[in-house]
C-alpha cells in the first residue's frame, strides 16, 4: 500500500472529512497559508478557503471556547493548538466547559470537537514548548485522549475522533511528523478509540508504550530479541478510553510489564496504567513488580544531551526489561 508520512496522513484525513461533511472545519493559529507550525494543514486553505480553514488571533482560551460553542450548536470544529504546552491557557474551557457541559445539562447538548496539538521533546524547543501533559486531560471525565504513534494510526484515529460526539484531545508528536507508514489506505477508515494495538507480539515481557515511545519500545524489542528475549509491545493508542483488556491479557501471558511514556514519570499516566494492572486479575500472574519509565522531574532543558537524558531512551528500556526479567 501507499507510504505516507504522519503529517500527510493527518492532512488527508482532515481533507477527506471536510469534503464529505460541511460541518467539519479548522481553527487555529497560522493554519492558513503558513500551513501550521508543523505543516499539517499545508495546502488546505487553498482547497477549502479561509472560511473553513480559519486563521485565528493568538487567543488560545478564546479559540478553544469558540470551538466548544460552535460544537454545541452543530459544527464539528477541529482546533489546532500550535504546541500542546499552550493547552495550559485553554484548560478552563476544556476541563470546565467542554468536558462537563453535557453532564451538567443532564445529558442535553454535546461537544463534538477535536483539539489537535503536538507534544513532546527532542527538537530543542525547551521547557515551554516540549511538554507531554496528556495526564491532565486524561484525569478529566468527559474528555477523550488519543496519542497516535504511526501515520496509519494517525489517519484512522483522527477520523474516529472527528466522528466522536465528544471532545477529543488528539496529541500528535513532533518527532513523529516526518515518520511514515507504508500501509496507509487512500480511502477513509476509522480506528475505534479504546482499541489498543499489539505492535509486536512477544512472550517474555510486555512493554506498554505511548506515542514516540512505541518506536523506542520496538527498537528495544528488536535488540532484546538478539539476546533471546521476546518482548510484546502494546500501544494503547487512546488512553481515554483505555483498552484495559488487551493490556491485562498480555501481562497474564508474559507475567512481566514495563510501562513507558515520555511525560514526567511523577504523576504521569503510566501510574494509572501500572495501578490498573496491579488492581486487575493480572496481579496474580505478575512475576515482577510493574515497572514504570518516564521523564525525570525537571522542566525540559534546551541542551540536546540534557534533553535526551531527561526522557526514556531505547537503552533505558532495554535495561529496564532486563531488570524486570531478573526479578524473581
Amino acid at each position, binding site marked *: 500500500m501507499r507510504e505516507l508520512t504522519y503529517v500527510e496522513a493527518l492532512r488527508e484525513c482532515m481533507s477527506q472529512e471536510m469534503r464529505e461533511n460541511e460541518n467539519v*472545519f479548522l481553527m487555529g493559529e497560522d493554519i492558513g497559508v503558513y500551513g501550521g507550525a508543523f505543516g499539517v494543514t499545508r495546502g488546505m486553505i487553498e482547497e477549502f478557503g479561509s*472560511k*473553513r480553514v*480559519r486563521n*485565528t*488571533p493568538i*487567543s488560545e*482560551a*478564546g*479559540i*478553544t*471556547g*469558540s*470551538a*466548544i*460553542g*460552535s*460544537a*454545541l*450548536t*452543530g*459544527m464539528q*470544529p477541529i482546533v489546532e493548538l500550535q504546541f500542546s504546552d499552550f493547552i495550559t491557557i485553554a484548560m*478552563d*474551557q476544556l476541563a*470546565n*466547559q467542554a468536558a462537563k*457541559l*453535557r*453532564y*451538567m*445539562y*443532564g*445529558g*442535553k*447538548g*454535546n461537544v*463534538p470537537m477535536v483539539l489537535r496539538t503536538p507534544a513532546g521533546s527532542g527538537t530543542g524547543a525547551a521547557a515551554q514548548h516540549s511538554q507531554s501533559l496528556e495526564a491532565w486531560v486524561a484525569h478529566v*471525565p*468527559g474528555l*477523550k485522549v488519543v496519542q497516535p504513534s504511526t501515520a496509519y494510526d494517525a489517519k484512522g484515529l483522527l477520523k474516529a475522533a472527528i466522528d466522536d*460526539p*465528544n471532545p477529543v484531545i488528539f496529541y500528535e508528536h513532533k518527532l513523529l511528523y516526518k515518520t511514515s507508514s507504508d500501509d496507509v489506505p487512500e480511502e477513509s477508515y476509522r480506528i475505534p478509540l479504546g482499541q489498543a494495538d499489539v505492535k509486536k507480539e512477544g512472550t517474555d515481557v510486555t512493554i506498554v508504550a505511548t506515542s514516540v515511545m512505541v518506536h523506542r519500545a520496538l527498537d528495544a524489542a528488536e535488540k532484546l530479541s538478539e539476546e533471546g528475549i521476546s518482548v510484546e509491545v502494546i500501544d494503547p493508542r487512546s488512553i481515554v478510553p483505555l483498552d484495559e483488556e488487551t493490556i491485562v491479557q498480555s501481562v497474564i501471558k508474559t507475567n512481566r510489564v514495563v510501562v513507558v511514556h515520555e511525560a514526567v514519570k511523577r504523576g504521569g499516566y503510566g501510574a494509572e496504567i501500572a495501578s490498573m494492572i496491579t488492581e486487575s486479575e493480572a496481579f496474580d500472574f505478575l512475576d515482577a513488580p510493574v515497572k514504570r519509565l518516564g521523564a525525570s522531574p525537571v522542566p525540559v532543558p534546551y541542551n540536546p544531551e540534557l534533553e535526551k537524558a531527561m526522557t526514556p531512551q531505547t537503552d533505558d528500556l532495554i535495561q529496564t526489561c532486563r531488570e524486570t526479567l531478573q526479578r524473581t
Partner: protein
Amino acid sequence: MLKSVELLPEKSSDELIGLLKEMWTIRYFDEKVDEFFAKGMIHGTTHLCVGQEPTASGPCSVLRSDDKITSTHRGHGHCIAKGADINLMMAELFGRSTGYCKGKGGSMHIADVEKGNLGANGIVGGGIPLATGAALTSKMKNQEDVILSYFGDGAANEGSFHESLNLASIWDLPVVFICENNQYGMSGSVKEMVNIEDIAERASSYGIPGVVVDGNDLVEIMNETDKAVQHARQGKGPVLIEAKTYRWKGHSKSDARKYRTREEEQTWKEKDGIKRFRELLIHEEILTEDDAENIRKEAKQNVEEAVQFAEESPEPGLDTLLEDVYA
C-alpha cells in the same frame, strides 16, 4: 403600541403585559429560592437576580426563537426570559430528576438547549467564548441567528472577555455582548476594579459599537438591544451593551454586604424596573391597576406551583450517576 415613549421593536399589548408578568415571575422565583436557601431547604449555593429583571426580560424579548443566549451564575432571570419552564427550573434547584439537568447541574448550570439557552455558567466569563462560537455556527451555516451573551461587570476583567470580543469583531460574528453592570463582582466595586467610567468604552478596543443603557428602563433596554441584534443579524458584527443595574440581594447565600451601604441599596431599589414598567403600562392604559395586581398574583401563584411540582418530583436514582458523561 406605546404612546408616550418610543418602542422600536413591535410589541402588542399582550406581549407588553406578558413582559411585566415575566419580570414578576423572575422576581418571585428568586425570592422563593432565597427563602428556601435561608431555610436550608436547598443544597449548594445560588445567585439571585432580584432587581435585575429588566436586563433579563428586555434583551430576550427582542430575540427570535432560534436566537440563542449564554447565561451566567446569576442566570435564573435569563433562563425564564428565554422561555424556560419554571417547574423544571425549580425541580433542578431541588436536585430532582425532573429538573432541567436531571438534578445534576443545579442553579449554576441550568440550560435549555432546545429553547436556545446554551446554559448558565459557574465560571465567570466562561460563557463568552461559547457565545462567540455559537455565533460562528450561525455565520458558517448562514442561519441568521443572533447570540446574546450575558456576563457581569466582574467578568469584563477576565481574559475570556477580551479574546472573545476580539474574535467576534474580526469575524463580524452575530453576537451581542451584554454586560449586566450591577456595580459589584462578589464584593469588588466596579469603581475599584476598572479604571474607566463605563465598561461599554471597551468596545473601542475591538472597533465595535458600545452602548450604555439604564438597566431599570425596560423600554430603553429593548430599544438598544433591538438595534444591536439587528446590527448583528445584518452581518455588521458584534455590539457591546452595558446595562447599569443593581442586585438587591447579597452575592450568594451568605453575604453580609459589608462592601456597600444600606443607603446605596435603597437608592437603587427606588429605581425598580418592574414598578416603572408597570406604571408605564398603566399610564398608557394598556393595563388597569386591577389587571396589574392580578398579573402579579398569577406570577406568584405560578411560582408556588413550580415549588409544588419540584417537591413532588422524585430524586434521581443513584444508577444515573455514571450516565451522560459521554454522548
